[in-house]
């Protein structure tokens, strides 16, 4: 879950206020929130992210570390895994972990072959990921903590 996805999730949890209202209430430049939430690369500086975290009443660090794990970087990782035919491990915000080879990558989802089972994972719930070397190829669907 990138910082943009996380902020979107927080906005939904806080009643789904529109961008204009939140921008006006936090003093964030107009149009920036849409960019932060919808762009695939990491948008927004630390100050803005801290403001938003404060606004939603969450620890700013929860937003800031996610900034390094943008959707664009996940795309690169998934495409690398697919091109090099190596497994990737995805850590979901739900606490689940999936390891498998990438079947396809879409803007919103990716399909992993986990122990011969196709699992379509929605990218906005992926917190972190790691490419695994070929030796660890055994595909496993695990339940565990992403952190």
């Amino acid at each position, binding site marked *: 879950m990138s910082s943009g996805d996380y902020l979107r999730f927080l906005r939904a949890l806080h009643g789904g206020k529109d961008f204009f209202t939140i921008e006006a209430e936090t003093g964030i430049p107009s149009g920036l929130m849409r960019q932060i939430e919808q762009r695939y690369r990491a948008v927004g500086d630390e100050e803005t992210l801290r403001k938003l975290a404060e606004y939603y009443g969450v620890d700013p660090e929860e937003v800031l570390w996610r900034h390094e794990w943008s959707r*664009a970087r996940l795309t690169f990782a998934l495409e690398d895994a697919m091109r090099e035919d190596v497994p990737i491990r995805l850590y979901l915000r739900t606490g689940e972990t999936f390891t498998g080879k990438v079947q396809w990558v879409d803007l919103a989802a990716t*399909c992993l072959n986990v122990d*011969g*089972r196709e*699992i379509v*994972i*929605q*990218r*906005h719930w992926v917190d972190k990921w790691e490419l695994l070397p070929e030796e660890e190829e055994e595909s496993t669907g695990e339940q565990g903590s992403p952190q």
Partner: protein
Amino acid sequence: MYNLWEIRKRKGMSLKELSARTGIPQERLYAYEQGKEPIPYSDLPRLAKALYVEEWEIKTLSDPPPQRKPPSGGRPRGQGKRSKGPRRKGQRSRPRRMPPPPSPARETQLAHLRQLAPAVGKTVEELEQMVGKPLSELTRREASRLLFQLQEILRERKQQAKEEGAHNRKRAYLPEGVDRFELEYLTQLQESGELVHFHLFDGSEVVGTIVGFGPYAITVQTEDGETTLNKLAIAWYTRAGGNS
């Protein structure tokens, strides 16, 4: 009749502009304005036309324009410390100001480079080899040039892929929108009528057959009836029977 420099100034024109309009070299115009040379009849029509006046309005021999007073405390033009001897080649009256040192690359540029490197199939080390120094030592201009190069490579690849018919996906408006591969996958599941397990972000599970879907929602027929799942709420899903 008026002096040439008077008319020119009244028209708000610079010597350079007048030269461009008339085709008369600036040096010659300057000589006319200073009264060092009379304006020949051959140049008068061109000057009159360029200045939107009649030929007779221009004095053929101008009075030199009044000298500007030097600012208090300053030295009058043409006097002062400058040496009067002929200037030697390469010699300057004032030391040339050193250009400012080039600005280092912005952090965002470096981050963007690191992000683009894998997309063009290069490692950061290979990029550094390309430029002959560590990325952190790049100047802003060098980083910008390198970014441009990488983006060009990406653009060419995309174009190539498009021509080959691959990756011609259309971008959904919102990040969670159903895209090409997922659309094919969902269509296949819907047509086959297979049971699908949907796992939601709160840990709950919905099992049913897909009866329809849009860019941002999937409608599922469960035992209890139809339910529409917002794509944002779905963490993952899979066929109930396992592999295809």
